[in-house]
């Protein structure tokens, strides 16, 4: 399996505070990779660093063999990496349709209709809400919209930051199932940052555990799920 995204020795700072301490990580083609960790471990920072904000101070980030470490954010986004950022960040005063159009801004409007149909196939609910403003959707629908918006650019790699944030367990499960389907049917590679370790590990082919800005463990999702240390720290509510 060739690596689609490969990160080596990545460090990042907020001012003088070090958030990432030499992270090595790989996402292969057609793989679902999860990154789990507690609050403040640096999960979202890692996700944002791939997009150059905060910029990596050391280390290299390669996407599809291309060095993207020092590229401007918007150019990275044009390389068929799509992101569904933490907190969803949909355009709340614009309609669902307009939100989806913004997602296609990079890919151009050539395959717009086809993409729209594809997205509606995955999230039929959005089709019903097409003319509604983003801000009037429920939390789950907003998350669907955020993912759908990211998919509108025909990405090879989807970065998902905390898709379960603030969602009811049932809706959460639905979202994870959709991600799984996207991976299996469309061959989409997914890099998932998640607090909900149980669901994330069940879904992921491989996973990394991030503690204080460094990867402490990695392995197959199913293996980590059984690992006593992971269980104690992230699954059974114990302290590590």
């Amino acid at each position, binding site marked *: 399996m060739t690596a689609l995204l490969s990160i080596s020795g990545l460090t990042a700072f907020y001012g003088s505070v070090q958030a990432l301490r030499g992270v090595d990580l790989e996402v292969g083609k057609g793989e679902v990779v999860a990154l789990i960790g507690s609050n403040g471990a640096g999960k979202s920072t890692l996700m944002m660093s791939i*997009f150059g*904000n905060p910029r990596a101070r050391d280390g290299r980030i390669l996407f599809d063999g291309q060095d993207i470490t020092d590229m*401007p*954010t*918007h*150019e*990275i*986004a*044009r390389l068929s990496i799509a*992101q569904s*950022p933490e907190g969803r*960040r*949909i*355009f*709340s*005063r*614009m*309609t669902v*349709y*307009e939100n989806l*159009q*913004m*997602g296609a*801004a*990079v890919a151009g409007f050539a395959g717009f209709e086809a993409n729209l149909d594809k997205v509606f196939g995955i999230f039929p609910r959005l*089709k*019903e809400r*097409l*003319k509604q403003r983003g801000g009037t959707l429920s939390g789950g629908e907003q998350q669907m919209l955020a993912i759908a*918006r990211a998919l509108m*650019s025909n990405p090879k790699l989807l970065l998902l930051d905390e898709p379960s944030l603030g969602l009811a367990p049932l809706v959460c499960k639905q979202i994870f199932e959709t991600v799984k389907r996207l991976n299996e049917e469309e061959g989409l590679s997914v890099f998932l940052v998640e607090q909900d370790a149980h669901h994330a590990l069940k879904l992921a082919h491989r996973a990394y555990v991030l503690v204080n800005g460094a990867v402490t463990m990695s392995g197959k999702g199913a293996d980590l799920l059984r690992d006593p240390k992971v269980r104690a720290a992230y699954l059974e509510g114990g302290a590590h």
Partner: protein
Amino acid sequence: MARLEKISSALREAALATLIVAGLGFPIIAYRAEPDFNNALALLGRWPLFFQFCLAAFALRFALAFWRGGAAKAPIRERLWRSPRWLGPAALIALVVYPLAVVGLLGPQAALKWVDTYGVQILIYVLLGWGLNITVGLAGLLDLGYAAFYAVGAYAYALLAPATGLGFWALLPVCGLLAAFWGFCIGFPILRLRGDYLAIVTLAFAEIVRIVLTNWDVVTHGEAGLFGFPGLNFFGLPFIPGPRGFAAHAGLPFAGVHKLIFLYYLVLILALAANLVSLRLRRLPLGRAWEALREDEIACRALGLDTANIKLTAFALGAFFAGVAGCLFALRQGFVSPSAFTFSESALILAIVVLGGGGSQLGVAVAAVFLVGASEALREITFLKSVFGEGFDPAQYRMLLVGLAMVAMMNLRPRGLVSTREPTIKLPAGKIAAETAS
């Protein structure tokens, strides 16, 4: 019994309001500092005026509390108001007919004021409002220094017209482009700023422009300003009496209002063009990117939009229209000086945009008519002099009017006069309804 209670609660509220007015008014109304013979400041008591204010506050607050029952405030009921379809064409026809009707009714001499002050001036502000609406309303970049670009346009015309010998048709786009260029220049250093910080820097930029215009005597003649530059002509025919003028060629008796009517239509056409451009742009990817930028900058970047470019174009295009408006201002006044481009000018234009409801074209136009027209109308109310005495100048109170309008807006229509944001894409209703039903 209930009535008595109502009165007593209203009285209490009125007393409180009076106390506040007394406290606020004591230092600014009760005493006035004036220099005496020795140029030392002497305090003059103005107690009657002070008590008038207190009494007025008491009476008004009592009436308000009594009629509203002093009860809990009614929830804001903001109905979505959609402008009826006939409104646009009707307003357009009214605007086209207006100057001719005024001249026909009042004669060319009395119509001067109506075409100039209430026509051309208001339309220039509408144009400015629509321009700033691109920056503030659509792209969400708070610009407190819009008058700087207005000044650039006005001075560009006043300086270039005599120097190059070009007519205003050629200079109009030049003025716009120069202002847009300055829009770019101010845009670059502030790309990283947002919200309050952005506002402060634009404010400072406007002050820099104004102070340079004031002090660069060699070029701008400082406070004295520039005048005597070539004015308007009708496709080569100057608006002058005598055989070479426009009136003689058109077979009309000469009247000063001809020039103003021509200017009126010129401003009207340019304002409509600005409106058309912003309406069209909203449907293009660029316009939608502006709105997306206003909603969430980080999401924009994550979707691959170059936010720097989007901000710069919003700034430059807004500035372009200000430059055009500045050129028209110079043509109208025949005189430009830095005092026309102070912060209060920026504030007025911003107030027009905010009152109009950010992003709404019609609301901005209505707000411009109201704010500019009403403050001009205040000058006309001469009968108030018989009430408040000879020294009373109603025009002094126009900022009070702006304040009142703002307070009224906050209470009645907190999202602007016309608060609906039309989606840029109207989906064919039948198609979607059928699809969602299936």
